């Protein structure tokens, strides 16, 4: 007899014995099967944030531009003229590891729904991806599938993909990361919340029919470590249909324009259960749902399956009964299915009916608020837990090192990925991916004065070296990217991708990372508007690199003045802008990785205030339209940044640096920029800018080292090989 036959149902659904006992206490009786299924999902890590909620309270959530903070489907900031930008980043890691195309596609679909659920029209998508080393066939398969899936969904639905990042590290070999971010635009007064309101109002399910796809996804997939034999979980991965979502999106936005809806919520993880419980909880009401009225894709579905199905492209709304005809007219025109499946009650209970029969009856508060929150038990490991990367570069000669870095999977041009995404639809894109350090969107046609910039960032290896400082860097790096296009940060969304938080060293990474992020954001005065936590990213090999991904949105007053990455004109002065006391080190850098060096246990401390002053100075110079180009120095150090400026502009440069050791050329550390322009354009930067050379020619010359642009370009094109 197999062991699994004797496992108690609640354990098979991922609940601990004490959690089960608490459910019995809150219910006043043992839950039946439907109720247990609903509880198991609502109390899963994915829905209840039971290991991270206490920590997240440390992040700042107030700011002058904030309109809607964490807790709604997406957060929102004001961009002036009564316009709001709603945005959020979310993970779809485990589904993508099982089936990369659909996993990534539905990740995009889900984040789009989060944004239009608050009444905003999605205008841009970005993504943040992590895979094992490119030498691994599995990694190439996952990369190809995930990129194709992201492109398929975003391109088909007509939302521009304006940027993203991808890194390849062995630590992600068994557990890739697929994070997707979406931005939407709305009139401030049209932002809608998800709180169900009005006893007697109707609950209407819109969109696709409900099938057995994704059942138990939240508990089985999102909240447990992956191990061998994951193919058996394939039926838990949802299948996306962007055409269905496109109609649903247009339909919902038209209904919001007409004021038909009282509230709106998307269906994501845990399907109807989670959406209904969240709506009822926020509205302090109850909901009765009749599962027999839910349009089904297949026959014979059990009530519990209908309640937890994660079928895609569905939305739930509350409307006054007299508006049903109006809703049906709009839905009919967009060929969107709409069915009243229940109503708002005063009971503060989520009741599940199957026709006349009550098959589940649960207190809303118990579902949403009573899941136990766990304290982490963080403990710093005695030494670095991650193995040294395999050495792939033998030579330490600077000439070879730069070519190796430019051609390394982490630094090579991302154009072969970006070209698979439509970055133009919507006609807002002023700076496309790879043209500048952040994407720039013009909002003039939407009624705004200027535009916005957006970037997404996160360097897991740096965080693995030092969870606190690495996370400070992630925030500053994102702000630096925005500064290169003259953008002032308005708000940030984050996705915390970590391993199993029940392990003390992972708990320590998580705790230190959130602390670093909180401290940096506090100094910058930038609020977190919302985000997502993805835990249990582990395999038998151990945890992934701790990977907090941050997406930042900033205001650009005049999109016509934005500079790009590339050098522009022969004779322009090249300058390095940095805080005089900025620390730069080869530890934990890309070069160190290529040389197979151990990850250090700690990075040099960062003076956040001083770094922020440099970032602000660059931003102001760009805003004034003085600089011809601006580029943040990141992975690979100054030498790589200079090479990127040359390639982006198609013109060389000759520079001299005070020292030419590998620390100076390739060392990393946040808060440095390569800028160019007429020499007088650099004056306002004062001591922060050090002139180091001149734009011109067909070569990059750094002191006595010299590279032809063609050889740099050839190395930089390495990623094309991943997409034969």
């Amino acid at each position: 007899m197999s062991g699994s036959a004797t496992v108690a149902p609640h354990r098979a659904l991922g609940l601990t014995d004490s959690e089960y006992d608490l459910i019995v206490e809150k219910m006043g009786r043992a839950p039946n099967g439907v109720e247990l299924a609903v509880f198991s999902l609502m109390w899963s890590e994915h829905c209840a944030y039971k290991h991270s909620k206490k920590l997240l309270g440390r992040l700042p959530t107030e700011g002058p531009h904030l309109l809607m903070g964490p807790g709604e489907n997406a957060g929102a900031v004001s961009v002036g003229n009564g316009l709001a930008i709603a945005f959020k980043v979310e993970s779809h890691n485990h589904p993508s590891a099982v089936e990369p195309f659909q996993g990534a596609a539905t990740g995009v679909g889900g984040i789009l729904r989060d944004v239009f659920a608050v009444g905003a029209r999605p205008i841009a998508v970005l993504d943040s991806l992590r895979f094992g080393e490119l030498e691994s066939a599995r990694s190439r398969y996952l990369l190809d599938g995930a990129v194709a899936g992201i492109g398929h969904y975003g391109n088909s639905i007509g939302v521009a993909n304006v940027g993203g990042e991808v890194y390849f590290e062995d630590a992600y070999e068994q557990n890739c990361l697929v994070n997707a971010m979406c931005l939407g635009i709305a009139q401030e007064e049209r932002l809608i919340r998800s709180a169900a309101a009005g006893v007697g109002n109707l609950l209407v399910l819109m969109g696709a029919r409900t099938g057995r796809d994704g059942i138990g996804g939240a508990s089985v997939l999102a909240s447990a470590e992956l191990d061998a034999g994951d193919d058996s979980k394939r039926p838990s991965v949802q299948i996306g249909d962007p055409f269905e979502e496109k109609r649903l999106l247009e339909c919902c936005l038209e209904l919001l324009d007409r004021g038909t809806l009282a509230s709106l919520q998307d269906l994501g993880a845990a399907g109807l259960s989670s959406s209904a419980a969240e709506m009822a909880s926020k509205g302090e009401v109850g909901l009765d749902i009749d599962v027999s009225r839910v349009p089904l894709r297949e026959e014979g579905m059990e009530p519990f399956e209908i309640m937890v199905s994660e079928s895609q492209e569905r939305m739930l709304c509350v409307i006054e009964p007299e508006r049903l005809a109006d809703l049906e007219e709009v839905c009919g025109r967009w060929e969107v299915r709409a069915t009243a499946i229940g109503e708002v009650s005063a009971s503060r209970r989520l009741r599940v009916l199957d026709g006349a029969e009550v098959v589940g009856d649960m207190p809303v508060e118990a579902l949403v608020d009573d899941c136990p929150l766990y304290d982490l038990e963080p403990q710093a490991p005695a030494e670095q837990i991650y193995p040294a990367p395999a050495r792939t570069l033998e030579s330490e000669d600077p000439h070879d090192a730069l070519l190796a870095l430019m051609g390394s999977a982490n630094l090579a041009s991302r154009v072969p990925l970006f070209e698979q995404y439509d970055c133009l639809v919507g006609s807002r894109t002023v700076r496309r991916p790879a043209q500048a350090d952040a994407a720039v969107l013009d909002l003039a046609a939407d009624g705004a004065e200027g535009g916005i910039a957006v970037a997404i960032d996160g360097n897991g290896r740096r965080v693995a070296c030092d969870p606190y400082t690495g996370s400070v860097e992630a925030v500053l790096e994102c702000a630096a990217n925005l500064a290169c296009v003259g953008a002032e940060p308005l708000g940030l969304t984050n996705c915390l991708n970590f391993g199993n938080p029940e392990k003390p060293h992972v708990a320590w990474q998580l705790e230190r990372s959130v602390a670093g992020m909180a401290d940096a954001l506090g100094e910058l005065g930038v609020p977190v508007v919302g985000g997502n936590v993805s835990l249990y990213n582990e395999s038998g090999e151990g945890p992934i690199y701790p990977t907090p991904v941050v997406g930042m949105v900033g205001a650009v007053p005049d999109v016509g003045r934005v500079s790009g990455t590339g050098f522009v004109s022969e004779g322009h002065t090249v300058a390095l802008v940095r805080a005089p006391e900025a620390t730069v080190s080869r530890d934990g850098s890309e070069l160190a990785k290529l040389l197979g060096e151990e990850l250090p246990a700690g990075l040099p401390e960062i003076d956040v205030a001083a770094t922020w002053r440099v970032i602000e100075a660059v931003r102001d110079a760009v805003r004034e339209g003085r600089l011809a180009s601006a580029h943040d120095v990141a992975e690979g150090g100054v030498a790589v940044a200079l090479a990127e400026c040359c390639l982006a502009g198609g013109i060389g440069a000759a520079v001299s640096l005070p020292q030419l050791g590998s620390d100076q050329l390739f060392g990393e550390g946040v808060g440095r920029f390569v800028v160019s322009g007429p020499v007088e354009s650099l004056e306002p930067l004062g001591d922060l800018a050090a002139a180091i050379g001149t734009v011109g020619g067909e070569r990059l010359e750094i002191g006595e080292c010299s590279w032809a642009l063609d050889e740099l370009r050839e190395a930089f094109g390495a990623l094309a090989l991943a997409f034969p």
Partner: protein
Amino acid sequence: MKFGVVRFPGSCDEVDALMACRRFADARLLWHGDRDLDGVDVVVIPGGFSYGDYLRVGAIARFSPVMAAVKEHALAGGAVLGICNGFQVLCEAGLLPGALLPNSGLRFLCRQVDVEVVNRDTPFTRACAGGDTLSIPVKHTSGRYYAPEEALSDMDAHGQIILRYAPGHNPNGSVSDIAGVANRDKNVMGLMPHPEHAVDTLDGSTDGGCLFESLVEHVEEMAERVAGAHA
């Protein structure tokens, strides 16, 4: 002078096309379920994924009510411009020769390309300067133009090949580098590049504007001719 931009369920670039048209003349959206073109002078079938592009790109859209009206409009000599998915729809509808196959690379491709105006003597290209190379983006998965050899020489002989990708810029394996074609009467044209994404200095190129300008000139000249004939 009024442009009408068709909106199918699944259209993506219809608002982009509408905004581009409005830089040059009046423009409005046309709903796929309506048979009435509301008196527009030029119909634009925009990019996107009409009806999800299920079955085959453009295959379902041709059966929509609005396409019946578009066919009547075209048969009466009215101008019709199909961009990307619109080009695919017009080929499926039999208003243009040839077909659009999956890109030779089998991937979606979004890239700024140079295209050469091969025939300037059409309602769509009359305002384009001689010897012009236009910098216009493409973005599609199925943009590889194909027509049989015989049809191609026939099209060539009748000046129906309107745009070609510049040397080295063919992004999808199109036969003879063809980027845009017209029907025999030159009142229906389809192209894979997106001129509506090259009309503003902030787009990085304004080269797409000459197609819209050409159509405005054409319609105004036709109106003058009609007025002259009635005078």
